[in-house]
C-alpha cells in the first residue's frame, strides 16, 4: 500500500521516511555512479562521433590510442591538462573564468532527472512502476533508477538549458575579442529562439501525461497502445509532429550541425570559445557532448517510453530496461552524428525563419488541436466504437478552420514584412 501512495505522489520512495544516513549513502553512490557514467559516455560519444563521421567520409579516423582508438578522447583530455592556459589581456578576468562553470554544471545536472532503468510495464502493480528494491545485504531500501525525481522535473531541464545560454553568452562577451562576441550573440539568439519551439512541443507531452515529473511521464507511457502491438509512447500518442519539432529544436539547442552557426569556422574561427585554451576549452567541449548525450536521453524519456521494453529473460530482469534505454539512446546519438555527416549548414536567416515562422506556429497549432481533442473526447466519449464520431469530425472541421485562419494571417504578415523591406530598400 505504501508503494501505491508513493506512486500516486510521484516521488522517489527513497526520501519518504526522511533523510537518514542510509539514504544519504545511497544518494552519494548514485551521484558518483551517474557522474562517472556521464564522463565515460562523453568520452565514448566523442570517439563514436569521430569514428562514424570518418567512416561516412571514407577515412579511418582515430586508431592509435587503445583498441580502435577508443581511448583517443582520454588522450586528448590528458594532453589538454598540459597545455598553456591563455587569457587575453582584453578579457574580463572573473567572467572569463566563470563561463566554463556555467556551461559545464547545467550539462551535468540535466542528467539527474532521467530514469535510466526500472520496470515500468504495469502501472497498477506497485512493484512495476520503476521502483528498484535493493537486496537485503545492501540495506533493502527501494528507490528509482534515476538520480532525482522532482515534481517539476522537466522544468529543471528547461531551466538548465537556459542557464547554459549564460555560459555561452558570457564566454563570448568576456573574451574581449571580436569573433567570440559575434559567435556568442549568434548562439544566444539561436538558443533562445529554439527554446520557445522546444517548450511548446513539450506542452503536448504534458497534455498526455498530465505531469511534469519525468518518472510520471515514463510511467504514463507504459502499457500497450493501439491494436495492442503499437507501444503507447508519446511519440505516437502526440502524433509525431511534436517529436519532429523537438528533434529539430534540440539539434539547434545543442548547436550541432546543421545548426552549428555558432562555430561556423569560415566566419567566426571557433565561435564563442575561440579565446579559450587548455582545460578551459576542454570544459566547453565536455559540456557540448554531455548535452548531446543528455538531450538524447531526454528525448528517449519523453517520447520513447524511457526504459520501456520487453523483458526477454527473467534471470536479470533489472538489466533489460537499462539495455532498452541504452539502445534507444544509441539510436539518437547515431542520428545526431548522421546529421552532422550529411546536412550542410543553414544560413542565419534560414535558421531564424525556421525557428520562429515554422516551428513555433506548427507546435502552437498542434498543441491546440490535441487539447481540443482531449476535451471533446472527455465531454462526448466515443462509445459506439466507430473510428470517427460526429463530434470528432466537427472538432476536425473547427481545427482546420482555425489553423487555416492562423496560417493565412501569418502568411500575409510575412508578405507584408517582405514588401515593407523592399520599399525601404534595406540592403545588407
Amino acid at each position: 500500500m505504501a508503494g501505491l501512495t508513493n506512486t500516486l505522489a510521484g516521488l522517489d520512495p527513497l526520501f519518504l521516511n526522511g533523510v537518514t544516513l542510509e539514504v544519504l549513502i545511497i544518494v552519494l553512490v548514485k551521484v558518483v555512479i551517474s557522474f562517472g557514467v556521464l564522463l565515460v559516455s562523453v568520452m565514448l560519444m566523442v570517439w563514436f562521433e569521430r569514428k562514424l563521421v570518418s567512416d561516412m567520409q571514407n577515412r579511418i579516423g582515430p586508431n592509435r590510442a587503445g583498441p580502435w582508438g577508443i581511448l583517443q578522447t582520454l588522450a586528448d583530455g590528458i594532453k589538454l591538462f598540459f597545455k598553456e592556459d591563455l587569457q587575453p589581456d582584453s578579457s574580463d578576468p572573473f567572467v572569463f573564468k566563470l563561463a566554463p562553470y556555467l556551461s559545464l554544471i547545467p550539462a551535468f545536472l540535466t542528467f539527474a532527472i532521467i530514469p535510466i532503468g526500472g520496470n515500468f510495464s504495469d502501472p497498477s502493480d506497485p512493484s512495476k512502476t520503476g521502483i528498484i528494491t535493493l537486496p537485503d545485504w545492501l540495506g533493502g531500501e527501494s528507490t528509482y533508477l534515476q538520480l532525482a525525481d522532482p515534481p517539476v522535473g522537466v522544468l529543471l531541464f528547461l531551466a538548465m538549458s537556459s542557464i547554459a545560454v549564460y555560459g555561452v553568452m558570457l564566454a563570448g562577451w568576456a573574451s574581449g575579442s571580436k569573433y567570440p562576441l559575434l559567435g556568442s550573440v549568434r548562439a544566444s539568439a539561436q538558443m533562445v529562439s529554439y527554446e520557445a519551439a522546444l517548450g511548446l512541443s513539450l506542452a503536448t507531452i504534458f497534455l498526455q501525461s498530465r505531469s511534469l515529473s519525468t518518472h510520471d511521464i515514463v510511467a504514463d507511457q507504459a502499457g500497450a497502445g493501439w491494436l495492442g502491438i503499437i507501444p503507447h509512447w508519446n511519440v505516437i500518442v502526440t502524433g509525431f509532429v511534436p517529436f519532429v519539432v523537438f528533434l529539430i529544436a534540440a539539434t539547434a539547442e545543442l548547436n550541432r550541425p546543421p545548426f552549428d552557426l555558432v562555430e561556423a569556422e569560415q566566419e567566426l574561427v571557433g565561435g564563442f570559445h575561440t579565446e579559450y585554451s587548455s582545460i578551459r576549452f576542454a570544459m566547453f567541449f565536455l559540456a557540448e557532448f554531455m548535452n548531446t548525450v543528455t538531450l538524447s536521453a531526454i528525448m528517449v524519456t519523453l517520447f520513447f517510453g524511457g526504459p520501456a521494453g520487453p523483458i526477454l529473460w527473467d534471470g536479470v530482469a533489472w538489466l533489460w530496461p537499462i539495455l532498452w534505454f541504452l539502445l534507444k539512446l544509441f539510436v539518437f546519438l547515431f542520428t545526431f552524428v548522421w546529421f552532422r555527416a550529411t546536412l550542410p549548414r543553414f544560413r542565419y536567416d534560414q535558421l531564424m525563419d525556421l525557428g520562429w515562422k515554422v516551428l513555433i506556429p506548427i507546435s502552437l497549432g498542434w498543441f491546440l488541436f490535441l487539447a481540443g481533442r482531449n476535451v471533446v473526447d472527455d465531454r462526448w466519449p466515443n462509445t459506439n466504437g466507430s473510428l470517427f464520431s460526429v463530434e470528432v469530425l466537427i472538432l476536425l472541421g473547427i481545427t482546420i478552420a482555425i489553423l487555416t485562419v492562423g496560417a493565412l494571417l501569418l502568411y500575409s504578415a510575412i508578405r507584408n514584412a517582405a514588401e515593407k523591406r523592399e520599399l525601404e530598400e534595406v540592403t545588407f
Partner: protein
Amino acid sequence: MESTLGQYLPVFALLVLAALFASLSFGASRLLAPRRPNDKKLAPYECGIIPAKDTPERFPVRFFLIAMIFIVFDIEIIFFYPYAIIHRGLGMFGLIALLIFTAAVFESFVYLVSNGALDWGPIKKARLLSPAVSAERTTTSTVRKVGLEGRYVPPTSPMPDAPEEAA
C-alpha cells in the same frame, strides 16, 4: 513537504561534485601547464592579423530584439504548462479560455512578424536584376575594373555617370 525537498538532494550533490570536478581540473591545469605568456599570445585572436580596431562594445540591435521577444514568448509558453496538466478537469471552459489566450499570443506574434522584427539577412523577394549586373552580359559589364567605372552608383552620389553610359 520534507520529502518533496528531499528530491533535490541528489541534484545538489551532483552540482557540488560537478563544481568540484571543474575547479580541480582548473587547479591541476594550473600546476601542470607551462606559463610562458607573451604579448602576441595575449592579444585577441584574429587569425594572425594585428587588430586594427578594438572589440566593439555594441552588437546589432536585432539580437537584443530577439532576446526581448523571447522573454515575452517564454512566459506565455510557461502559462500553457499548468493548463496542460489540468486541462481535463477544466473541460470546455478551459479550452475556450485557452483559445482566447492563444489568440492574444498569436496576434502579438503576427504583429511582430508583419513589422519585420524577425526578418534577417537579404531581402527574400529581391529585385531580379540588381543594377550592378546589367541584362546584357558583356565583358564590359561582367569584368570588374578598378575604380567606380562599370559599377552601380547610387543616384544621390555626386558621380554623374550611370553604369550603362560608362560602358
